[in-house]
């Protein structure tokens, strides 16, 4: 089992780039065009936003709930706002939205009351943050905009695809990678 405690390591304030971050950054850097406006939700350390901006030349704006993450991302030169998911983003603005969400399924009572829990835990289903994100992301997307969402087998790719469909999105898996305890998929969601 992938235990939250193992993933947590010693870092308790800001989620540090891991396999999931690398995968999302690599796929995003291939997909994003120079003239796109990109939003990265829950940027954490700012690693993905920095790489995508650096490798594509696109403007990348990042958001995070965690003030420590906001500072870390800003220190990397990322344009960042402190926000709850997509709340303060204008309607019909974003060409691309990137999200490596908190996705690990967590039993009640197994959680920690700190920023690392917020970065990792997706509640009992692993989809406690993904589901509201999928319900709201359509508002901020430009007419031809799309989402690149990182999903783990632990969270259930099928369930995420079904929820996305309820919000009017078609899903395509752009990349899969297998690791000892999970496989990671980057989904492209478009309308």
């Amino acid at each position: 089992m992938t235990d939250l405690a193992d993933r947590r390591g010693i870092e308790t304030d800001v989620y540090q780039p891991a396999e999931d971050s690398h995968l999302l950054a690599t796929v995003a850097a291939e997909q994003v065009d120079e003239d796109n406006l990109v939003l990265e939700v829950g940027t954490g350390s700012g690693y993905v936003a920095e790489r995508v901006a650096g490798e594509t030349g696109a403007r990348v704006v990042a958001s995070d709930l965690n003030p420590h993450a906001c500072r870390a991302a800003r220190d990397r030169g990322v344009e960042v706002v402190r926000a709850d998911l997509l709340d303060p983003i204008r309607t019909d603005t974003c060409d691309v939205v990137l999200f490596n969400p908190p996705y690990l399924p967590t039993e009640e009572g197994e959680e920690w009351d700190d920023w690392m829990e917020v970065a990792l835990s997706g509640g009992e289903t692993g989809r406690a943050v993904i589901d509201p994100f999928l319900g709201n992301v359509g508002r901020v997307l430009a007419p031809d905009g799309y989402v690149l969402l990182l999903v783990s087998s632990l969270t259930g790719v099928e369930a995420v695809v079904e929820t996305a469909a309820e919000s009017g999105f078609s899903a395509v898996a752009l990349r899969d990678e297998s690791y000892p305890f999970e496989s990671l998929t980057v989904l492209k969601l478009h309308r």
Partner: protein
Amino acid sequence: MKESLLDIICCPLDKAELELEVHEREGEEILEGSLTCTDCGETYPIEDGIPNLLPPDMREAA
């Protein structure tokens, strides 16, 4: 934050435009200031270059 961010962000409560007040600027970067909703009047702080656009009830708790 850069002033051009105003084209992307809005009030998290009612999605109305925000009005910028600058207290400290360094080149293009606004380091200290505030953003006020042109509709509901709620004010959001900019501290160390980072706008805090959490709704007021989450601002203290988070």
